[in-house]
């Protein structure tokens, strides 16, 4: 449900969603069951005006993440995944359609799955609040037909069932006796054992008259195909009576289930909410999370984890360094190549997106607004490539569109805008764009290698601390993975205030670490020193 009192909820385009890890995040907190998916799809992200609700949801997740055992959460989610979907059965029963015994069996499975879920909740230390519902009344309605996990339309469901079944049993027994008597006559007279519906009498074996109640189905020169006729009207009557009694029992049972329909619907909604909640609890247990303070004047967080990157690094056995940021309005971010400028931008977007989705941002602490929009400018996406836009053209088009929507409720993340054009014109364009964003009051973090942008745009200047001095002269690494390990160990990823408007890119030192020919590094160093 969308809070109608709130402003337009949070939104991010496809390129931004990919860059800030929003797609990854949605997958990471996806519910496991159909109820949860339905519930999740019905809830819009939080936008400006939803701060109280967002905080309440996040606070509940954090509290549950602390209280529930993580293994217990895994078991609860497995139990949720196993809950069958009763809604179509309930809908058909409500519409007056006849239910089948498989429907009753599935409702029985639903009741059992709820019981298993409630047990898993108790075992995980869930407490009474939010405990998954159980449907005792529905269990009671179905109980007479259930034995273990099975279902049978038992005699106890209707007063006439037992008598009708007994009558059919008697009729079937009589039918078999009569059929067997005729079959015995066939065996005695003809020597054929008529086990099936039809049997064949070879003319060279027997070509005489057939016993009573043996019917000829067809004849050929070599054989006659025959069948046994047992006339037993009481068997047909018993079958018809039983069919009526069973249908009546199903009708009665369906009516009683309709009486529980509201409870079933309420239960499935509760399961949907629980599924969504547990997905977020599992996320918080894995990545940690805080209850953010919702403020208007800054985006700040301490030791935040950009979880998609941390996961990718972990898969390669590398360590992720949490980031801290204090962004008030617009700031320029500079720093060395591979120093984590893009990761810092993504982390800012990720933390804000978590809050907008009602998920605890994986950080020690966070203070931020609920944004209406997060936009990423830098590089191009598949959509841009499909439009045959160059990287520069794609950036400019995105900048144009982003500027149109820029406001104090937007977070704009700019990753080396205009790096693919001439550096003088590119820098000028970036400064002018930053000024325009500042004028609109937007939050923006502008990562760039251009010098003097912060000073020119009169905005704060932050930088990545960069390579530690002692390691800058290290020899080239033997292979890329080893080099990356070395860079990772040597890099100080902290975001700090820049003292002047120049930041070294450490490009030459990094090129050496990555194994570029030493002669080239030496020559480049000479050229660079001459220019300086």
């Amino acid at each position, binding site marked *: 449900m969308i809070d109608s009192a709130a402003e337009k909820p949070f939104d991010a385009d496809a390129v931004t969603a990919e860059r800030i890890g929003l797609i990854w995040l949605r997958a990471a907190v996806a519910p496991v069951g159909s109820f949860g998916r339905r519930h999740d799809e019905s809830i819009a992200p939080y936008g400006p005006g939803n701060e109280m609700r967002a905080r309440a949801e996040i606070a509940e997740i954090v509290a549950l993440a602390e209280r529930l055992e993580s293994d217990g959460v895994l078991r609860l989610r497995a139990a949720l995944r196993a809950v069958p979907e009763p809604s179509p059965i309930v809908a058909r029963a409500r519409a007056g359609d006849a239910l*089948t*015994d*498989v429907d*009753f*069996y*599935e409702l029985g499975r639903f009741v059992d799955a709820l019981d298993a879920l409630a047990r898993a909740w108790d075992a995980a230390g869930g407490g009474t609040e939010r405990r998954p519902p159980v449907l005792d009344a529905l269990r009671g309605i179905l109980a007479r037909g259930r034995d273990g*996990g*099975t*279902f*049978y*339309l038992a005699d106890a469901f209707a007063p006439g069932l037992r008598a009708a*079944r007994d009558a*059919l*049993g008697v009729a*079937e027994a009589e039918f078999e006796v009569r059929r067997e008597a005729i079959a015995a006559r066939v*065996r005695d007279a003809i*020597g*054929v*054992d008529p*086990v*099936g*519906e*039809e*049997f*064949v*009498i*070879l003319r*060279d*074996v027997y070509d005489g008259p057939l016993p009573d109640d043996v019917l000829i189905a*067809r004849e*050929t020169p*070599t*054989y006659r*195909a025959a069948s046994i006729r047992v006339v037993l009207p009481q068997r047909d009557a018993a*079958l018809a009576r*039983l*069919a009526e009694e*069973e*249908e009546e029992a199903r009708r009665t049972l369906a009516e009683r289930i309709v009486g529980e329909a509201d409870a079933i619907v309420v239960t499935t909604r509760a399961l949907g909410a629980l599924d969504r909640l547990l997905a977020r609890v599992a996320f918080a247990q894995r990545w940690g999370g805080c209850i953010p303070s919702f403020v208007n004047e800054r985006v700040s967080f301490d030791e935040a984890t950009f979880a998609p990157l941390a996961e990718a690094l972990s898969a390669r056995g590398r360590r992720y360094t949490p980031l801290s940021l204090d962004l008030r309005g617009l700031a320029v971010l500079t720093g060395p190549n591979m120093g984590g400028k893009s990761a810092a931008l993504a982390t800012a977007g990720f933390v804000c997106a978590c809050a907008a989705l009602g998920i605890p941002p994986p950080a020690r602490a966070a203070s931020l607004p609920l944004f209406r929009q997060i936009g990423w400018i830098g590089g191009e996406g598949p959509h841009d490539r499909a439009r045959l836009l160059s990287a520069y053209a794609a950036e400019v088009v995105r900048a144009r569109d982003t500027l149109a929507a820029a406001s104090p409720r937007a977070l704009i993340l700019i990753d080396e805008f205009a790096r693919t054009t001439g550096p003088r014109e590119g820098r000028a364009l970036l400064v002018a764009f930053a000024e325009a964003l500042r004028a609109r009051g937007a939050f923006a973090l502008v990562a760039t290698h251009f010098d003097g942008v912060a000073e020119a745009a009169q905005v704060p200047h932050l930088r990545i601390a960069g390579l530690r001095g002692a390691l800058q002269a290290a020899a080239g690494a033997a292979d890329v993975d080893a080099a990356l390990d070395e860079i990772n160990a040597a890099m100080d990823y902290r975001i700090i205030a820049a003292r002047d408007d120049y930041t070294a890119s450490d490009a030459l030192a990094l090129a050496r670490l990555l194994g570029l020919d030493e002669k080239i590094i030496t020559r480049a160093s000479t050229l660079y020193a001459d220019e300086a």
Partner: protein
Amino acid sequence: MRRSSSSTSAPESLYALATAAARSVVVVGTAKNAGKTTAFNALCAVARRRGTPVAVTSIGRDGEPSDALDAEPKPRVRLAAGTLVALPVGLIPRSPALAILDAGAESALGRIVFARAVLPVTCEIAGPPTARAMRATIDRLRALGEGPVLVDGAIDRIAALAGGDDAVIVATGAASGATLARVAAVAADAVLRLTLPGRDRARERARVVRLEGALDARDAEALLADARDATVVVDDPTRIAVRGALFAKLREAVDLRCERPLRVIACTTSPVGRDATLPPRALVEAVARATRLPTFDVVADLAA
């Protein structure tokens, strides 16, 4: 050739042979209306007479009152009380009610449901659409009951059984040919394909050709031209898509093997075809001679 003795009828003999060979028995036909469901029903009837609870299912759809294609009447499937059955939700009879035990794979007619007949009931049966789901269905039926599992099969859809311990019965008859010779030849061809021996690495020839997917006429011609005296290995007998003389020639020329063999144990015959009726006794004899397998006519009570 013998007429069944009064103490052991053809259906009884077939049932004894099949259930001694394997826990699950699949009847497949060489053609439509070859008497597959009749043989299947005869096995069920023997089990019923013996008081042995069986489990049944079908690869395909069987037991409907008339054929969906030609509207010809078809044998119904009668389940005795206590019979386990796997069938789609859409084919579960409403009365007498079945006890619903479990649910499995999806099929075109709804989920496959495992159920038990509490009272005798006549119904249609069908099974899951994929080989893997069919295997799982047979295995589930085995787990749910203790008696034999009887499957009304389809000759082109028994890949699921390859490599397993199921027994296969080939149903043939006048539906697959207008003459005794033709029916016998079709049966021999089918049995020859289905009894393709398993791979024996110790006895393989110097050159081994492993074929992925189906072995079709083009493959056969290429092998005859290029790979005579080689061991040719396919996945299972159902991958052999060549028939008749070309298949016989190939089998003679190369050491044809499969990774996962089938166990064909017997044939049944049906003398009644849409366009021809054949003498039952001669048909049983001809098929037995051509296939070298025990052969039964379960309605005329003949065995050879």
